[in-house]
């Protein structure tokens, strides 16, 4: 079926069967590869994107359910004031190691800061629970979110 997607401010016409995860449309059809495949069962968060501003796991979000919604990926975060602050904090603290999960971490971190401008360590741990990092960069993710909150406040 033909589906109209609004992604990063642009409208795309894509051809995909119902039941196709948004993840694969973003990666294989639109060739935006910042959004990652990690588990396919919404258990690692590497595929996190925003749907109308809310973080969702794109591997378990089906294409027929997103028509009419605004989809935002990591590639758009430089245009988002919170996204930009998180990216700046990530670079200052060298949060990344292998980096494969970090698009998803940043998309979740932006979602958190959007609803809570100054999260505590415990609130970060709770919100970010579903974003796995096999390099275990968690310390710096926590510090990065708090640093981003500072940047936003300044």
């Amino acid at each position, binding site marked *: 079926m033909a589906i109209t997607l609004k992604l990063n401010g642009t409208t795309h016409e894509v051809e995909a069967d119902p039941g196709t995860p948004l993840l694969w449309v973003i990666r294989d059809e639109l060739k935006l590869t910042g959004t990652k495949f990690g588990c396919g069962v919404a258990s690692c968060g590497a595929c996190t994107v925003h749907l109308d501003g809310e973080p969702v796991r794109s591997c378990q979000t089906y294409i027929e359910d997103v028509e009419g919604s605004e989809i935002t990926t990591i590639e758009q975060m430089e245009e988002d004031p919170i996204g930009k602050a998180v990216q700046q904090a990530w670079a200052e603290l060298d949060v*990344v*190691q*292998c980096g494969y999960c970090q698009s998803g971490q940043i998309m979740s971190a932006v979602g958190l800061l959007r609803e809570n401008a100054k999260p505590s360590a415990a609130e970060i741990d709770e919100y970010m629970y579903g974003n796995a990092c096999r390099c275990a960069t968690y310390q710096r993710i926590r510090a990065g979110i708090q640093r981003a909150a500072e940047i936003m406040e300044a």
Partner: protein
Amino acid sequence: MTPKTSRRSFLKGAAAAAGAALFIGARPDGALAASSSDAMLNPFVKIDSEGNVTAIIKHFEKGQGPATGLSTLIAEELGLRMDQIHYAFAPSNPQVYNNLLFGPFQGTGGSTAMANSFMQYRQAGAAARELLIKSAAEAWGVDPAGLSIEEGMVVGAGRSAPIGDFVAAAAQMEPPAEPRLKSPEEWRIIGNESTRRLDSVIKGNGKAKFAMDVHLDNQMVVVIARPEQRGAMATGFDDSAAKEVKGFINAAVLPNKAGVAVYAENTWAAIQAREALSVTWDTSAAETRSSDEIRAEIMAALDAEPEYNVLKKDHAETLAAIEGAAQVIEKTFYFPLLAHAPMEPLNCTIEQTAEGDIVLHDGAQMPTGPHMAFQQIFGLPAEKIHINTMLAGGSFGRRATPDADYQVEAALAFVMTDRSRPVKLVWTREDDLRSGYYRPAFGHKVRVGLSAEGEILGWDHRIAGQSIMKGTAFEAFAVHDGVDGSSVEGVSDTPYRVPGMFVGLTDTKKATSTLWWRSVGHTHTAYAMEVMMDLAAKAAGRDPVEFRLVHLAGGGADQARKAAVLKLAAEKAGWGKAQAGRHMGVAVHKSFGSYAAEVVEISGTAEDGFRIEKVTAAVDCGIPVNPDIIRAQMEGGIGYGIGHAMRDQITLAGGAVEQYNFPDYEPLRIGDIGAIEVHIVKSTEAPTGIGEPGTPPSAPALANAIAAASALTVADLPMVEHGVSFA
């Protein structure tokens, strides 16, 4: 250990290569590109006439930092700021880009990237600097002794000009035989805390390209239908339902019968078509055992006479010493199979060029492996095979199989096509956990005899498990007198002075594919050693830190360095001063030439669950080249060790892996460890490993903290399966 390179031959080779000007490379989208270099001074650094400097990185980047680390060495010698240098991954060439500790073999592993590159890359940078200065001196008619390079400019004699101005002339010169390396007093970047990773920004904005992100024109995606039972062979399949999947192309049994390749237009179609495929398997030669049977075999081996007397000591003497001891402590340990589960599932892409060359796009940890395998599979000479090394989303050892398993799988899938379309092999997480290579299961049985005064009189240490190295290309390198060093490392070579030590090893039968897993044998040996040291200290009525220091006293540099990190970690953690409701455990271990001590502080109880509040670590890995990367590797190594010890294992039932995806191979999560603090010893020794040494002490330090809090000594992993819960 600093590998010696012959500077003269190295630099001559570099100068000769300067004339060779064709490079096969890849555009950012992964497609092939050819270019000529007009200013290649040597193969480890490239400077163009615009003054752009590129460090050519011979190691792959899986997050452990060599892209930044090796660039740091070049930038230091060339007088650049870190924002003036770029990096590129080297092509596959075991002659030029070999790991100096591996022989003529290009590869990353054993935490050797910095250790084997420290001299080599500094020499390359220094040679470039000297030639550029000489070239400037000739152009200006001044004495080179008065010139230097500062932030990309040749300066001195009252003049300054960009280095790019002197590249053409410098490329015609003979490099110095002995370029002068900057002394530690001159270093501004090596050891600098403020250096940031060169790959940080691109990994935060989605622009970093991993092998999984390759999209070649007209590519097919292939996934492999695999058997439930390990070792079963595909005999046929029915793809009538798969044909209903839009984008499905076709399916074919792999030439080695290990599975069925499912070809499709895109990844989702390939995954869907595989689900719809019905495969018949010949299980006559497949594994049928369960984990319990494998465990029983290991446990029986621990009680039998060991196959190998590792230290070639008189066992009777150790047994007699223990027999006569005032106290005997005995513990049997079991360590389950573990999967690596790097964040980026395994994948790679193969294409054939118009000239008939084969190109592999891969997060290649050991390029020489697939390079050699592909020569056989494709019947091509080495120079017709090219490897485009891309960023890797983690590995922990998984991308370094001696048999190049997934690259060979992709090649077999490719040779079954007409080669007109590139083939991208994708593994799912289920493939990764169920059809992977594992840290083998191991058992240890340790008996320690103590005198009435608490001195160690005898230490009888039996180890049993499946060898990693035997039957691989690394056997000659790692197996001596039948003993696979990776099965006993960390016990047989312990820096502790342990009187009356006997180490026995028994290899058990092959149950799965086995593979090095972040810190290899140290993953289990450090646990057994350090938990035993705590038990011995307790039996002797001594403090665990003090007891360890006694067994590190009066020795050489090895003991002194191990003792120093132990003291540093204990001091920084406030050892012995835990607040009410908190308990600490300690462990210290040497691996990959580096020394790491860790204190784990927990709260809670066995009944209500423990919480890891803080880990305080100290590490001595020689000269700290990039201190913040060292800190990050310790943080990550600790998390990796602790996460698996807490709750992960791979189990078999009837020869089939029981776990399928992260929900039942649960990764460490952000809330599992409250804080990690890392202290780095300001060493002047040659750099040693940092990717792995943080892992070994982490799990035993946690076990020792739990023992301090609850009198429960966990000797079976994972902890959650053996009486421990975490809040």
